[in-house]
């Protein structure tokens, strides 16, 4: 039997779609999230639909001191670890509420980096495996409208890039996923341009294909590569006056 796929942040819309995609391919699934009771429904669903073994695990990305123990108690070492964790409350609220801002920065960068570091060491030793981080195009340039979230993702993107370089010779794949807008709970109620907005399913398909093709960095909708190229090119004196 193939080794399982571990999904960190499995209660999210993207996490669910990813779990389904891999389960459909016959992979055993390990679902991990803070409120493990909320995963029971998904466990039943995946098992009935795809007939694969599914297990659920409690995981709090902010409790970094528990991460090693979390890995220890997994019944089986995963072949693929996908970190879908993300947190994006309103920027305006973060500006006023330091502890919320801190949660944002820690949830999007610190926690994911710690857990993936631990897996990286294990995977490097055994010489294979795949680590996937869902980062964001928001990490490519800080903007007034979401720089707490964006800076967290920027840190995560840089982390993944460094990790990839380190593990390049070990046979461990590190995949950075830059989804652009995705139609999920996080973006609900926002007016998103349909051309630039992916469904969670698309993200899942893109990740699956990128792992097969051993890719390093993917944009879920290719158009985002060009958009972000342009945005990065804008000179700072001009950029600071734009309302992007």
């Amino acid at each position, binding site marked *: 039997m193939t080794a399982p796929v571990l999904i960190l942040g499995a209660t999210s819309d993207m996490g669910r779609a990813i779990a389904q995609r891999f389960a459909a391919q016959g992979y055993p699934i390990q679902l991990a999230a*803070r409120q493990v009771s909320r995963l029971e*429904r998904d466990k039943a669903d995946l098992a*009935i639909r795809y007939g694969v073994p599914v297990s659920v695990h409690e995981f709090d990305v902010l409790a970094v001191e528990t991460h090693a123990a979390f890995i220890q108690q997994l019944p089986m070492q995963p072949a693929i670890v996908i970190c879908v964790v993300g*947190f994006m409350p309103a920027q305006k609220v973060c500006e006023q509420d330091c502890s919320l801002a801190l949660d944002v920065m820690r949830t999007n960068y610190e926690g994911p980096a710690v857990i993936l570091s631990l897996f990286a060491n294990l995977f490097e030793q055994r010489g294979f495996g795949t680590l996937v981080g869902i980062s964001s195009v928001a990490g490519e340039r800080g903007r007034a409208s979401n720089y707490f979230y964006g800076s967290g993702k920027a840190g995560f993107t840089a982390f993944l890039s460094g990790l990839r370089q380190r593990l390049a010779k070990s046979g461990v794949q590190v995949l950075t996923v830059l989804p652009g807008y995705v139609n999920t*709970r996080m973006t*609900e*109620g926002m007016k998103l341009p349909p051309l630039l907005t992916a469904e969670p399913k698309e993200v899942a398909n893109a990740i699956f294909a990128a792992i097969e093709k051993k890719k390093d960095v993917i944009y879920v909708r290719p158009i985002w590569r060009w958009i972000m190229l342009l945005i990065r090119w804008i000179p700072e004196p001009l950029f600071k006056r734009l309302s992007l």
Partner: protein
Amino acid sequence: MSSPMAPRGSLKTLCGWGRYPVQTCHVYCPRSESEMIQLLKRGLPLIARGNGRAYGDSALNREATLQMRHFNRLLGFNPQTGQLIAEAGVLLAEILEIFVPRGWFPLVTPGTKFVTVGGMIAADVHGKNHHKEGSFVRSLDWLDLLTSEGQIYRCSPSENRDLFYWTVGGMGLTGVILRAAFRLRPIETAWIRQTIRIAKNLDEVIDLFEAAQDVTYSVAWIDCLASGSRLGRSVVMLGEHATREELPTKYRQRPLRTPQRRKISIPLDFPNGALNALTVGTFNQLYFLNSQRKAGQSFVDWDTFFYPLDSLLGWNRIYGRRGFVQFQCVLPLSTAREGLSALLHCTSAAGAGSFLAVLKKLGDQQGYFSFPMAGYTLALDFPMSQRTLKVLDQLEEITLQYGGRFYLAKDSHLTPLRLRQSDCRVETFVKVRNAQQWTVNFASEQSKRLRL
């Protein structure tokens, strides 16, 4: 950070499958029960929405429409009994895709597979086997209902019995169905042994139905432009789940697999008026001639037999921007022959060519407020126009005259008075709704229009 927030709503333009009426609604897509309870506690009446396959305004509410699509998990399956436990937002299409290859089929299915479990229960849908096997409630073991003030009740024929029987057929007006357990039937093959018969007129169709009492599935497609001695001429389709033995050898190897049907999408709205007496008449003629050629027995796959229209995705756009309305009533056995003849006369005289006219025989009533009763049900589609509204008035009057009643899942036109004249159960339903405070928490544009 972990506090359950009430989900943000967004303004969306919504309509039913008939695309009439269109309404801007505050739409919420909750992902958990606690989010739903938060919404209920705001005290605005809301309505649950499945996949929007009801034709009119029964799944619309301006203030709060609750989109159930995130409640789409399968929670349990018992291969001994065929009992499936599913969340309300699971699509029938998904169930079929997963379970037909494993040898299971729903006990009752409507004519489209793009409906949700919640929608099927709320409308207590009937299939081509109603005369023999009843409506959806027959296969329903229990349901969990979220009702006023955020209480959740397990309802079944033995537990919270009244709530159970008001909820099936209750059109979302008793609460939000969260999940349900219902039974699938074992099938040996994914094929239907179909027999096609041609009926020259209304009398012949009804005779055919009466003679086919024991056949599991039966339905007739009526050419409603035919008049005079050919009034009611139709193609009658009878079907049984084929056994493995019966199957032609080429299918016998993998009896639960059927070829994938090609799907065609209607990419844009047809111009208003594209469906007129001429085009519909031509279509009906061709369909009729083609069916005559196919009369007799054949084996068809389940998808083609049960869901002929589903391969034309978005076919409601054929009717143009103004949309269309469906009229569906049931007439009791005693008046059916006469009543149907009056309805068809009215339709063909108006020349308001109905693209689809479907006739089925129904068995006894089951839910307290479900549509089916012993008799014949006729469904007609009309492109929306001023003239159509007049035809509908006439058809409704005829239905009343012959003691019939109307299907709320198809309605977008009835008045409170006509509904009450047609159905003595309405007053009781409204009384119960008031007594239980359901009116405070649950309402649709349809229930407001019909004062339910």
